[in-house]
């Protein structure tokens, strides 16, 4: 399965897809997209890499076990929901920074929440696919 063509393509598609995934993630609040789809695309990027180069290579590339992204992402979403509670507001209340930022628009807890979603989705889908792939 490790064909030269696929390997080469994957090398260029990986950063492209990852970039695209972040793009999809960040624009989600304004246009179709968001953490789910973004995360799914990012995981597809790595899966493609694994198809082309073999799982060990991909693992090597990622350095950390994808499963670790799950607590990180969950934690991020959790904290962004928790944050307003320190300001004595209900859980998940949106807190926004006044200034708009280029590209992303308003930065607020919802953004971090979505990033958390993004990370969890990557972590979970990659854990699933990689585990299955390894057990074959």
């Amino acid at each position, binding site marked *: 399965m490790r064909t030269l063509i696929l390997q080469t*393509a994957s090398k260029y598609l990986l950063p492209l897809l990852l970039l695209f995934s972040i793009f999809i993630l960040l624009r989600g609040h304004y246009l179709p997209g968001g953490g789910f789809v973004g995360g799914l695309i990012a995981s597809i990027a790595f899966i493609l890499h694994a198809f082309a180069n073999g799982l060990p290579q991909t693992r*090597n590339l990622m350095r950390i076990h994808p499963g670790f992204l799950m607590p990180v992402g969950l934690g991020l979403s959790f904290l962004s929901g928790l944050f307003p509670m320190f300001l004595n507001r209900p859980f998940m209340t949106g807190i926004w920074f006044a200034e708009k930022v280029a590209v992303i628009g308003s930065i607020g807890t919802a953004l971090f929440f979505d990033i958390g979603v993004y990370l969890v989705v990557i972590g979970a889908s990659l854990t699933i696919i990689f585990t299955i792939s390894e057990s074959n």
Partner: protein
Amino acid sequence: MRNLFLMNILLALIWAALTGSFGYINIGFGFFVSYGILWVITRGRDDVNYFSKAPQVVSFLLFFIKELVKANIQVAYDVITPKDHMKPGIVAVPLEAKTAMEITLLANFITMTPGTLSLDVSTDRKVLYIHAMYVEDKQAFIDEIKNGFERRLLKILR
């Protein structure tokens, strides 16, 4: 490192294209994002030559489009008319292209022109196996590939 840097710039530009805004803040942000991505994935990658040779690229693209349209029409004709004119076959084309990048680009461009389909590259990277719809003469076909796509492509890439 230079390659990485180029790649980074490229990705930043693609980012700008994606987001549809070429303001310097956005490009900067795109640069930042792609920097992060490259940082994540840099391990285990070959060096790739990023010198851009603008005129050659343009001429290559024009050639490609010409081939694309020409062959598309030919195939269209074959599809639409009831009689089949094909003489298909798989041809082993010896490769001058050496690097993975070269071979891949070549193979893909060949595939993207109608009538030909790059099936596979031999494991030792010496031969590209092409399925072609019209193989009147094997040697002529090989020459056409070698003088057409391969030569032009290699000129750009090397």
